């Protein structure tokens, strides 16, 4: 049965990696800790639910709708709020120190806005829930789709950062924003594109989890926490290490439970989280970017 466990670890890991990727991109380029990230996942889940129930649109298509909606939201708050603030160093520094609290406000608004609009009743729908069996693994279609989409997005992002010119600019902004600007990188454009991408990825993740979980206005927070744990393990702002850490967390969680007991799951994860922050705040692998 260990292939089954491997599959479970891979699914959990890919979801962690995907959710954390969006958070990490936004932190890396804008130095904003978006604690409302999980609530964007929630928005994505609602998009999938309503698209299917009202328009009969399958979640595969909702992936794009959710990405557009969440990405659009990112654009809106960037243009509306952050562009101006981030261009003055003093304001940017204050914003950075308070970003977590700021996004807590956003999180509260999103959760209660959705709860007001759609009530807090749990929702759910069925999609691709037939079970496939291969190579000693039993997997439902929706979990396979989750794994596939998450892998493609994570890999795609890595390739993009490695080979595309804009990807290079993005990395430059993450590592040294001031220097990037000097060598002619359009920092503003990079930041805008990143916040849109980061938010859009969260929306996509939301569609994916909505296929397997109950949908409520308050489902997002655990995703925020998971994403925080992952990017801390990888080192804040380190995109590649963040993705590796996502998968690592999936494996640690799944095999940790198998080796000890499910009852220690949360202690294990938070213990690891706290230990890394205390002992290796730069992350398990490589080095984190400097917090300004």
């Amino acid at each position, binding site marked *: 049965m260990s292939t089954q466990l491997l599959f479970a670890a891979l699914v959990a890991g890919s979801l962690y990696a995907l959710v954390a990727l969006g958070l990490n991109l936004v932190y890396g380029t804008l130095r904003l800790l978006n604690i409302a990230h999980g609530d964007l996942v929630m928005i994505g889940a609602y998009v999938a639910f309503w698209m299917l129930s009202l328009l009969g649109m399958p979640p595969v298509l909702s992936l794009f709708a959710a990405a557009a909606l969440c990405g659009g939201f990112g654009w809106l708050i960037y243009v509306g709020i952050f562009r101006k603030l981030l261009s003055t160093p003093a304001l940017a520094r204050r914003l950075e120190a308070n970003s977590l*609290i*700021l996004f807590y406000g956003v999180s509260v*608004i999103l959760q*209660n*806005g959705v709860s007001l609009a759609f009530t807090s009743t749990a929702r759910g729908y069925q999609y691709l829930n037939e079970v496939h069996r291969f190579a000693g693994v039993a997997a439902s279609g929706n979990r396979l789709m989750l794994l596939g989409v998450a892998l493609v997005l994570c890999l795609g992002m890595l390739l993009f950062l490695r080979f595309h010119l804009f990807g290079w600019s993005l990395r430059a902004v993450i590592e040294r924003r001031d220097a990037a600007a000097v060598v002619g990188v359009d920092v503003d454009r990079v930041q805008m594109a990143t916040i849109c991408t980061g938010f859009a990825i969260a929306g996509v993740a939301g569609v994916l989890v909505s296929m397997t979980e109950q949908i409520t206005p308050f489902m997002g927070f655990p995703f925020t926490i998971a994403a925080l744990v992952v990017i801390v393990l990888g080192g804040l702002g380190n995109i590649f290490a963040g993705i590796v850490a996502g998968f690592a967390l999936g494996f640690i969680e799944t095999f940790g439970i198998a080796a000890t007991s499910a009852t220690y799951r949360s202690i294990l994860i938070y213990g690891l989280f706290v230990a890394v922050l205390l002992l290796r705040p730069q992350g398990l692998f490589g080095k984190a970017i400097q*917090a300004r």
Partner: protein
Amino acid sequence: MTKLNLDIIGGPLLVLAGLALPFAGADYLMGIAFNLAMWIALTQSWSILSAMTGYVSLGHVVFCGIGSYVFILTNGTLPMPVALACAGLAAGVMALVIGLPVLRVRGPYFVILTFGLAELAKNVIVQIETSLGQFSRLIFDAPALDTLYFIMFGLAVASTAAAVLVRHSKLGRGLVAIRENEEAAEAIGVPVTRLKLIAFVVAAIIPGIVGGVLLLRTSYFEAAQAFDPVISFSIVTMAIVGGMGTVRGPILGSLAFVLLSELLWARFPQLYMIILGALLILFILFMPRGLSGLFERREARR
């Protein structure tokens, strides 16, 4: 001078009003005041470390939770006041033990570390309770509301007094130096580690006792609730809205929130939360000095 006058007149007035309140005989009013006092005690104690040094803690609830737990374990075997003292002591000891490693971590890492610690502590206590075969615990014969109110009011006053004392002491000046530039402070001989640790421990004791008193009010202990992260977030929200620069800040912030919630939650609970979120954003973006900043500006203009 005007600022001092305001505090000298306003402070004692607030205290008098607080002491007189139970004699008005309105349980409901006392209930609000109890909450107000609780938030002032929590936010004020939080500010001793976090507002002074800039080490923003997002896990202040951990001390409440530990306090609640120690209180429920000791209450009954020990007389209630002693159990409350144990609660505060336990929270202080915990701060002392974790303080050294935790306070080495800085910036956004410190913020998420404190949050993670609170969640870790919650899960550990849940695990302990489960292995003890305890699921939830009840308190019987809790004292009446007016007694509880006086205790909570005392805690609010004590934590405000502590905040004032710290601010006007050598400790406070050291803490501010840490906020301005920790390396520089260390270089000129400020014992940064010791000062941070002292502030951390002082900041922990009051929420520990608050945790115990809160249990007496609700008469029910369940670990997952005792460590509700919303409490930590609310504390930071109140501190920011009130303003982090002064002792008045936490009082104004708590007052604003308690009043706002009284006005709004009757009919529009979700809307209340939305307004709360929006206020938080507005204050961070446009009024970094919070409500107390408004006062100062007016005083300066005079």
